[in-house]
């Protein structure tokens, strides 16, 4: 079994939230392999470009396959991988710049297919690797190298984007909660359809939100991150919408559609119904004989 390259020297900044996400993914993939009795090579990590994408090279222990592609195109790459071989477990890792800015055009199309993949978005609210420019999830009025007068564009609400785009399983998590995050990723990989685990993964260099997420109850500062109440019915789309629209970061399962037929099953069923036979080239030529 392949191991990680010991000489690979890329690293994240100390305290980067992505370390926690990496750990959770390693554990989730290992647990899945042992639970399903399948080799870890049955999993493919499709990584975007940015700090987050480097996660694919930093996996420790047993190695899954990986694709480290081009900026913003994780979802269409995953579309091809999963469609070509539905038996593979396909995991996308991406960041708020890669997934929600340059890559945002791909969310709704792949969600509407109900492509059976899991996306882990590491949201640090900033472009880290290019040194601190505003991203879609940077707060309004934030001053960055590209927002000299403070950010003028409203902050994107990614959970609303996912719900609007048609994602069927949406979990909002924190990079500091490694065990619940591992469980969330495992659940998402087991879900038969398009699932997203959106993780607040702070950038200690350009946008350190650890304190804000945690709050300081003793001094009357409410935590930005709030657990989703047990009373929330995650199977109810409208409850999910209402919760996502509120300020702050909900933590837990936001939405989980009960009925989910993944893309490859839809195709198989449609072809069975239509009675489509395998291609016979000679028959196609026969129809053209003059």
């Amino acid at each position, binding site marked *: *079994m*392949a191991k990680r*390259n010991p000489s*690979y020297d*890329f690293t994240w900044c100390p305290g980067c939230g992505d370390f926690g996400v990496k750990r959770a993914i390693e554990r989730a993939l290992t647990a899945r392999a042992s639970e399903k009795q399948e*080799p*870890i*090579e*049955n999993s*493919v990590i*499709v990584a975007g470009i940015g700090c987050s994408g*480097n996660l*694919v*090279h930093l996996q420790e222990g047993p*190695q*899954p*396959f*990986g*694709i*480290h*592609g*081009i900026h913003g*195109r994780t979802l*269409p*790459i*995953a*579309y*091809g*991988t*999963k*469609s*070509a*071989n539905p*038996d*593979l477990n396909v995991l996308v890792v991406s960041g708020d710049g890669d997934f929600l800015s340059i890559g945002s*055009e*791909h969310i709704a*199309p792949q969600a509407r297919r109900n492509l059976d993949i899991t996306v882990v978005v590491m949201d640090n609210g900033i472009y880290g690797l290019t040194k601190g420019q505003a991203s879609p999830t940077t707060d309004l009025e934030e001053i960055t190298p590209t927002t000299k007068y403070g950010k003028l564009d409203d902050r994107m609400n990614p959970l609303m984007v996912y719900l609007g785009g048609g994602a069927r399983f949406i979990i909002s998590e924190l990079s500091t909660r490694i065990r619940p995050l591992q469980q969330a990723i495992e659940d998402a990989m087991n879900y038969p359809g398009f699932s997203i685990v959106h993780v607040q993964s702070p950038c200690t260099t350009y946008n350190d939100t650890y304190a804000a997420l945690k709050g300081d109850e003793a001094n009357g500062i409410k935590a930005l991150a709030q657990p989703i109440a047990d009373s929330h019915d995650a199977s109810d789309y409208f409850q999910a919408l209402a919760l996502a629209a509120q300020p702050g970061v909900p933590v837990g399962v936001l939405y989980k559609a009960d009925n989910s037929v993944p893309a490859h099953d839809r*195709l198989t069923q449609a*072809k069975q119904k239509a009675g*489509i*036979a*395998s*291609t016979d*080239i*000679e028959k*196609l*030529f026969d129809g*053209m*004989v*003059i």
Partner: protein
Amino acid sequence: MSKNLVVRFAGEGGQGVVGGSELMASAAAESGYHVLTFATYPSQIKGGPAWGQARISSEPILTPGDSLDVLVCQNEYAYDANLPELSDQGIIVYNSQEFEIEHPRALALPTDDMAREAGNARAGTIVMIGAVAKAVGFSLEALESFITARWDRGRPGDAAIIEGNIKALHLGATAADESGFEIAQVDPPVEEPDARERILIRGYEAACLGAMAAGVDVFIGYPISPATTMLTYMESNLNGDGKFVGQASSEIESIAALIGAGFTGKKTMTSTAGPGLSLMGEGLGLAWMSEIPLVVADVQRGGPATGLPTKTEQSDFIMAMNPGHGDMSLPVIAPGNVEEAFWATAKAVNWSERYQGPVILLTEMSVAERAQDIERPDTSLISQESRSISDGSVENRRYEGEGVSPFPVPGGPGAYVANGSEHDEQGDTTHLADVHIQMTERRFAKLKTLNDGTFEAENPTASIAIMPWGGSKGSGRGAWQELTSEGIDIGWYYTMYLNPLPEELLAELRTKDKVLVPELNYMGQFAGHLRQLGVAAETINQYTGLPWRISDLKEEIKGHLS
């Protein structure tokens, strides 16, 4: 009697002018003739000037034809615009309920009324086909049986439509008979008893079938003129275990999805046109960099930007070779006609597997949309090539060595990262100069495996030669034949394999005083490439959105001989 007949149906989009020419060609093919169609139309569903043309011949056909024997006009604009191309003895058939003309050889038909009389108001074009058939002495029985087959679609109204269409055919024929118009009739077809079966096939169908014969598994594309027909043909016909056809949300998605699919070990392909190929640039760089086999068929149209979506041009050659940033040189195969579209596409799939990277099938509207009768391809002549799969013995060192190496497939051993950043042997990112040098040279070295390109060479001792590429082959060949028969000493060279060029061909071209390259672009793109390779190439170009006429090309060549 004459060797061949060219019939053009001209009118507006939606008036059945393309369908009319194809019906005429199909019926002629059924009767044993060689046929070739060509159409030009605006990028809109209804309206706008459009025409479809069928060339019918007792001999094999190279081009859609230089001048018209029959011009069928639905409106006055069609008449005015197309009349200059009518031959001296040519006749006109026109809808006299649309306009009136004064012309000594024009047959006026009130086709709207005649279609209604036949019981199918939409059969106006068929009335005209009947008249044309009679005027050229063409078998009405063949047309009847063709109409019956074409409209027998298993629907309740079929019988009435067939009956109406056949009646319309005869009404047109009778009107032509009574008018007394007739033109030189075409020679009967030549029987070729020992030949393989013949089929009537379009360029895009031939390309798709070539890909299937080479074992393509996955086809993902996005609608774009004039390449959509390949996507829809695959959607209908590429089926079976492990096969997948999908519609992406953009060409950016198509190419990314092919990379994701090719990564799993599958043979993949997409079709697009210039604007789509532009969007695929970065993705093609990723495929080159991460060494993922795939095939992109570029059906060229007029450019740049939206350009001329439904016209033909050969202006994507430079982009086909270098579609993205950075050092890369993609293999390019350009079929010259419908028959070659089959073999070229099969070869493109094989090449992509052999060198483990992207291959461009560079075709064009006039080849892809053309229907032509060809010898039924013998698919047993295609030996499917498949990338060698890693058995895990090199563990994750997927990019080890100086050439093509075994390909690890997800689910099996050898997990690595297919990386678009410069990478070491196991796919991890690196910026080290020595690794970038080694990997760059590795990627180019793999092209050396593509050394089986063939070429045509005739009269190789001549110091001046012509060498057309792609769809300019037919007219180039026609012009060369005529010049040669006039006693002009000129060589003929042709290959589908534009990059890398067959080495022996390049060596011969370098010995010439002059190599004339007919091509449909302003820049002389292929001629420029040949000059870079040390060939004294001169471009002969036009950019009308239409293919060469043999007569025009011949004159142009003569101008370059002195």
